[in-house]
Every structure is written in structure tokens, then in C-alpha cells.
């Protein structure tokens, strides 16, 4: 009987170990192929070259154009998501009745559950044509349109996490502020938001990380032209988009082109890994605050 219990515990342990193996696997796979990549391409080229053209005859391996493309779409997304998300969070936590919260929160959950390829289709067929009427010189593929749609996609992440943080602020703080004659808005801005700032930071960082790794929206609406630019109106290419582009084609295995997607993938992984860990440690710290 003891043996049976031990076997079961062992099996369950193995299940948990799968998670560790996944992490180890991801890092090993990315590192292994990236090291091979750097045996052919100097690291200095990778970080200083301003062109990324591994699929052309005149090959250049500078990650910068992909990085700026990624950051450009992410930036547009955050410009949309932060003000909207935080306003919703303040509204839900400080103004809305319990009943209204009960309606709005599931609605936001629906937004979060729409497959990203659908958002991509929407950006390409609705938002871009619309923006072309407003912004002169906007190309059919660009960074603004997918950025905006991505921003709206991550609004639920930002709003729900920051609302949780605001909701956790003790009521005594609100009462103290109201007792001094402050309005709801003043209380929210001067008491609640600062008190919940670490939680809000977490929500923004996670939204950031989410946008950096988002693939299908940019794959459909941003174009496939790696370009070192900060102009959001022209076609660009993000890291994720490049990986999809290579995967859709028939690049021979073990070729240098094949290894580029792992080098690009590792770059992406490092960015999201750092962001996620920052948010994890902030969260750990702020959880302790009110407990």
C-alpha cells in the first residue's frame, strides 16, 4: 500500500516536472540553434547591422529592424491599452455598481477570448481601410493598424489586473479621503492609483510582454518588410512575423536561414522573460503589502 502511494506521488511529481522540462527545453532549443547561428554570423553584425535580409541573395543579419518593428507595434498598442485599461479599472473599482461590474467583466473576458487571427483579419480588412481615410499616405500594411487592434486586445489584461489591485486597497483609505472632502475622482487619482501602483505596473508590464509576443495580428496587417524606422505608416516586420514568414515557406532544415528563426526567437524570449520576471517579483512584493 505504501508502495502504491509512493508510485502515485512519483507520477504526480513527474507531471509537475514536465513544466520544468518545458522551460529547460525552450531555453536549450533556442540556445543550441542560436549558438550554431553565431558560429556563422558574428554577434556584432547581429546587433549593429541595420538590415535584416536572410532570405535574399545579399544577406544581412541585423536584428535591429525586427526589434524596432516589434517595439513600434507594441508602443502603439500600449498607447491605446494603458489609458483605456486604467480608466476602465478605475471606473469598475471606484464607480460602477456591483451589478454593472457583473455585466462588464464578462464582456471584457469575451474580448480576451477572441482568437488573434480574427483580430488580424479585422485589422487588415476594417481598421486599415478606415485609417487610410484619416491618415494620408498610410500604406496597406503598417504598424498603426495592428498596433491599435492589439491595444484593444490587451485592454482586458491591463484592466482586470489593475482593477484587482485597486479593489484590494483598503476601504479605510477611501473613507479617509472622502472625509476630507475629496471627490471620487480626486480619491481615485490621488489615493487609490498611488496605493495600487505596483499592481498597475504589473498589469502594464504584462500587457507589454503580451504585445511583444503577439503574432497573428502583425502577421496579417503589418507587412513583411524588415525596416529600421520609427514611422508607423509604412510596412514593417516584427520578430514574430518573421518566424511565421520563414515557417510558411520551405526553408531547408539546418540551413542558416532556418537557424535565424531561433536567433530571432531567443531575442523575443529574452525580452518577455525579463518582463515577466520583473512583474512576478513586483507582484510577490505587493501581495505582502495588504496581507
Amino acid at each position, binding site marked *: 500500500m505504501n508502495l502504491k502511494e509512493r508510485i502515485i506521488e512519483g507520477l504526480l511529481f513527474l*507531471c509537475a516536472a514536465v513544466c520544468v522540462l518545458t522551460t529547460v527545453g525552450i531555453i536549450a532549443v533556442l540556445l543550441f540553434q542560436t549558438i550554431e547561428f553565431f558560429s556563422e554570423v558574428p554577434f556584432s553584425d547581429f546587433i549593429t547591422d541595420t538590415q535584416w535580409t536572410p532570405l535574399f541573395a545579399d544577406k544581412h543579419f541585423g536584428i535591429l529592424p525586427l526589434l524596432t518593428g516589434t517595439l513600434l507595434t507594441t508602443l502603439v498598442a500600449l498607447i491605446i491599452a494603458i489609458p483605456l485599461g486604467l480608466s476602465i479599472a478605475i471606473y469598475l473599482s471606484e464607480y460602477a455598481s456591483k451589478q454593472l461590474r457583473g455585466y462588464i467583466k464578462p464582456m471584457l473576458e469575451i474580448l480576451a477570448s477572441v482568437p488573434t487571427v480574427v483580430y488580424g483579419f479585422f485589422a487588415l480588412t476594417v481598421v486599415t481601410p478606415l485609417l487610410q481615410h484619416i491618415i494620408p499616405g498610410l500604406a496597406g500594411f503598417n504598424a498603426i493598424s495592428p498596433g491599435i487592434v492589439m491595444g484593444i486586445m490587451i485592454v482586458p489584461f491591463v484592466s482586470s489586473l489593475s482593477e484587482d489591485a485597486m479593489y484590494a486597497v483598503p476601504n479605510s483609505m477611501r473613507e479617509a479621503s472622502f472625509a476630507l472632502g475629496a471627490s471620487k475622482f480626486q480619491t481615485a487619482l490621488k489615493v487609490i492609483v498611488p496605493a495600487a501602483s505596483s499592481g498597475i505596473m504589473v498589469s502594464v508590464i504584462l500587457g507589454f510582454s503580451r504585445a511583444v509576443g503577439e503574432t497573428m495580428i502583425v502577421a496579417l496587417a503589418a507587412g513583411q518588410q524588415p525596416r529600421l524606422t520609427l514611422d508607423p505608416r509604412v510596412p514593417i516586420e516584427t520578430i514574430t512575423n518573421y518566424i511565421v514568414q520563414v515557417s510558411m515557406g520551405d526553408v531547408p532544415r539546418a540551413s542558416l536561414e532556418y537557424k535565424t528563426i531561433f536567433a530571432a526567437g531567443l531575442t523575443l524570449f529574452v525580452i518577455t522573460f525579463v518582463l515577466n520576471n520583473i512583474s512576478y517579483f513586483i507582484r510577490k512584493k505587493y501581495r505582502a503589502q495588504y496581507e
Partner: protein
Amino acid sequence: MNNERAKTLKDNIFKGWAIFATSVGMIMLAVLLIKIGMDGLHRISLDFFTALPSRKFEKAGILTAWAGTLWIMVTTALFAIPIGVGAGLYLEEYAKKSRWSSMLEINISNLAGVPSIIYGLLGLEVFVRFLHLGESILSGSLTLALLIMPIVIVSTREAIKTVPNTLREASYALGASKWQTVWMQVLPASAGGIMTGIILALSRAIGETAPLIVVGALTYVPFVPKSVFSSFTVLPIQIYNWASRPEAGFAVNAAAAIIVLMSITFLMNGSAVYLRNRWQKNVRW
């Protein structure tokens, strides 16, 4: 007095802005639904579900795509559910608070934040190439299983946390072993919450495109998968493929396929929400 009026005004302005902010998402969702409805609804017919993909948009259907999605969903569930629930059980019921368990915790939170396309790269190297499973349903579903594992684990743990300790004590006090307690008391008592998490995770898996493109799901598959070793396509990839073609006719097909895909995900999310509410109502220790 003026000061007071300014305060109220600011309050009201913010309220108006916040209501606008809340509705932006809803408006977009509404526009999206209307757009795909207008574009795609007339394209939906029995033929659309039973036709093979074609280079002519008016003939193309989603037979292989939805069959692939079904295969992927079932096989992904077969891997993700036992391992995810098992890992959740281990962390909640067995693991002692130690450096190892807090490391596992950071690990899972990290995995949840890894972009899905990275899982694709993992699956490509490990399942497709190293284990020689090829660009098959098996490779795709193993990749997706790893991708949704953190969701399953986290929701399993949340559900198990709601089981009161008095239940475990009562079971132990009758001489039940640890596994008997877990299997006969803890799991049934948290089944509703675990199921909710599993459905949400699977609905996420169904909408995933990028990792499957990377592991080599094809865009043109002229046959229905016969086994887990068949090559395959899925609905989102079919949509991506159609949406990225210049001809307007394929955009119509994409919209129609989106209607199918979104119906499935909404149905799954809806049943998850229903299950969650029912389960929460039934819990009354």
C-alpha cells in the same frame, strides 16, 4: 463653492470618459461581428463544411480544417488534462513549501508568459525533428498541450484551494490514505472548477495559429486526417491563409470560417462560465 462645482464637473467628465473607454472594446467587437456577419454569413452552407480546400474561392470549403481542429483538440486534451491536473495536484497536495516548490511556481508563471510562437519553435525542434514525429497532428497537439499546461495547472490549483481542510481531515481520520483522500474527496469536490479551467484552456488552444504554423501545419491539405501521424491544417490557419490572399473572394471565405471558429470558442467559453457559476452555487460548505 466654485471649487466644489469644478470637482463635480471633473468627476462627471471622468465618468463619461470611462464609459467611453469601456465601450471601445464592445464597439469594436460589435463592428467585428457585423463585418464578418455581412461578409461571411451568406457563404455558410452545408457545402462549405463538406468541401475540400480549393484554389477557386467559390469552391473552397473547410472540411479538412475543421476535421483537423477536432483532431487537434481531442489529442491536445488527452495530453494536457492528465498531466496538467496531475501537476496541479502535486503542487497543492503533495509538494512541501520549499525552494523547489517556489521555483516551480516561478517556472509556471514564466511559462504562462512565454509567447505562443516560442512554443512552436520548441515543438519544431523536439517533436518534429528530435523525436521524428514529423509535421503531424501528434507534434501539433503535444506543442499545444505544453502551451495550455500552465492554464490547466493554475485553474486546478485554484479549484483545489477552495476545498476546505476539514474535508481532508475527516477523510484521514477514517484511515484513508493520502491518495484515497485526494481521489475520493478532493478531486470530486473541485471537479467543477477544474473542468472550467480545462474548457477555457482548450478554447485557447483552438484559436492558436502561430505555434502550429511553426511546427509545420500545412495551409493546403486536400484530405481529412486519418491518424495522429497525418499532416493537417486547422481552422485558424485556413483563416490566416485565406485572409492573406489578395482576392476578395477569399476574404469572404475567411469571414465565413471566422464565424465557425468564433462560434466554437464562444460556445466553449459560454459553457465554461455556466459551469463555473453552477459550481460556485453548489459549493456551500
